[in-house]
């Protein structure tokens, strides 16, 4: 068995990112295109406004305010982001012709400019009769293709709404509530795709209410103290990265990527460094590095790639999501692409060097 090793310097990637920022290069060449779909009144337009941090599209609580597919372009932290806002889908059978019209124009749009990520938006607090959504999800899947779920994120709005009372009369914990509500939609989608494992579509929680709790940067916080916007953006970029590397074998059964994001408050930095490789045989490869952004915010990024390249874990421990991390992801993507080129029988030992 051949043996080869390779060293990959993430610090050089960071240097490049810093240089780019110094040059004030407007487009870091990693544009993001998001398609937002979902039922009417769930908060698609409001979420888009929150992502951009400004009111880019009209919202209305009582009437559908988005009547046709709209392209919204903006910059987030120096990265070009394009979002397609769509009219809301309706649940009743009578409105299926309207739904079909909307979905066929979305399909045309996807052909013209395929999105990197599809956000399926729904409310966290109105899931009790979500079996009604199955016909709608079926319709969406039939128009946009079942492969859409591979690059989808389930975005649940009203995420800081108070959980209802449990059977003992006391309010449910937020984690249990969120898990139960999101599991309902996950199950419907699994049923739709004919999967009987417990693969999961990545979830993002969203809170668009202007009075929700915010941190000192003005970012809206969830119950667990995290900024949902950073998490969502990171998820989007990760999905884009992975799909470009095309790790999953399309012929085999789809395995959804397990994305874990943890972010730390600036007062509790995390420093973790360990190289990991196995000499005899290996299940996968762990690439990990720690770095400092702007000289003061710590971050750890790790990518764990399984041997058969069917599973990949991205982890970011960071209190700050900046364009540099996007650039890092771009470099990681290039590296992973080069990985793919090597035959599976080769043992690959990857190490990282931290200066």
């Amino acid at each position, binding site marked *: 068995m051949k043996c080869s090793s390779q060293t990959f310097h993430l610090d050089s990637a960071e240097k490049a990112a810093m240089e780019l920022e110094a040059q004030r290069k407007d487009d870091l060449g990693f544009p993001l295109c998001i398609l937002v779909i979902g039922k009417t009144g769930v908060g698609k337009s409001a979420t888009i406004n929150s992502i951009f941090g400004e009111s880019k599209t009209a919202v209305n609580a*009582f009437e559908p305010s988005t009547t046709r597919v709209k392209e919204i372009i903006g910059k987030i932290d120096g990265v070009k982001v394009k979002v397609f806002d769509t009219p809301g889908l*309706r*649940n*009743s*059978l009578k409105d299926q012709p309207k739904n079909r019209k909307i979905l066929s124009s979305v399909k045309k749009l996807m052909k013209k400019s395929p999105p990197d990520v599809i956000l399926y938006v729904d409310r966290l607090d109105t899931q*009790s*009769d979500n079996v009604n959504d199955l016909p709608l999800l079926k319709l969406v899947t039939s128009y946009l293709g079942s492969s859409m779920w591979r690059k989808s994120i389930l975005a649940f709005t009203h995420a800081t709404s108070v959980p209802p009372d*449990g059977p003992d009369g006391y309010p449910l914990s937020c984690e249990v509530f969120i898990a139960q509500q999101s599991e309902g939609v996950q199950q419907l989608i699994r049923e739709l795709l004919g999967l009987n494992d417990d693969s999961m579509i990545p979830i993002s929680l969203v809170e668009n209410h202007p009075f929700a709790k915010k941190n000192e940067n003005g970012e809206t916080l969830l119950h667990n103290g995290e900024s949902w916007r950073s998490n969502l953006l990171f998820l989007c970029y990760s999905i884009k990265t992975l799909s470009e590397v095309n790790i999953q074998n399309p012929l085999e059964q789809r395995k959804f990527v397990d994305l874990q994001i943890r972010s730390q408050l600036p007062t509790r930095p995390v420093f973790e460094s360990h190289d990991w490789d196995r000499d005899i045989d290996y299940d996968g490869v762990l690439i990990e590095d720690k770095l400092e952004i702007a000289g003061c915010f710590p971050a750890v990024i790790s990518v764990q790639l399984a041997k058969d390249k069917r599973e990949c874990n991205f982890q970011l421990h960071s209190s700050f999501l900046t364009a540099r991390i996007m650039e890092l992801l771009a470099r990681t993507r290039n590296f992973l692409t080069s990985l793919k080129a090597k035959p599976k029988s080769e043992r690959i030992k990857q190490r990282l060097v931290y200066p």
Partner: protein
Amino acid sequence: MAGQLVKEWAGIQQFPAATQEKLVDLLAKLKNQNVDKLTILVMGKGGVGKSSTINSIIGEPVVTVSAFQSETPRPVMVSRSRAGFTMNIIDTPGLVEGGYVNDQVLDSIKSFLGRFLMMKTIDVLLYVDRLDAYRVDDLDKQVVKAITDSFGKEIWHKAMVVLTHAQLSPPDALTYEEFFSKRSESLLKCVRQGARISKKDVQNFAIPVALVENSGRCNKNEHDEKILPTGTPWIPNVVHAITNIALNGKGGILFDKKLIEGPNANDRGKLFIPLILAFQYFFVIRPIQKQIRYDVARETKPSWA
């Protein structure tokens, strides 16, 4: 329900004193008008809070509620009595399933009522929906239409709208009152459309709207009563609205065989039968007869005769 022992409304004791007082007053008002029984039917889509509202009003968890099980599986009647006054509340499963109104559920409700309410009246209908649902769509109209078709348009003389999840923070920088007013107006418009209440008739069908907050974290006032964001204690408020409807002079919906079976399909368009026969006679049969006579007259002798 002859022969059945009706439970004492014990739950009223666990309300704070101020609420108990108001409820006792309302019951007394009903008794003054010789009303010693009220039958309340609670209907609406699934997951809106029908069972929770009933539990809140009765004051004890009589109907099982689960946030995750989709809904009450079958109709349930809860009866409580106090000082000679009996209240029957009927909880029903949600009427919508998978994008359309579930006829089976409707039939199960009607047969349930047929068993327990034969020749008795429905005095009040509570149509329940959520305050924090932003949109009104065709499904809501269909639910209203199904109720109207089953019980007759007159049920809307004895109906009120109950909006749950009342403790909400309004979106879009609206004040609570603005949001409530817009939401009730759009829902009432939907009810009028579904029940085919014409614009002229709207005054006759004054459907009140009441707010309800069933969660344990409902805010309370200084008397420990559960209150709405406007400060009103909501339990006496809802019971007061129910009382007003009960005493509004319009008769309750009598539940008889005709109501259960629904309109006789054979009766439909009966009036048209003589009209169609007349049309056929004058415009089809007569001309054809004329034409036949004409042909007979014009007929020359056949060549073989």
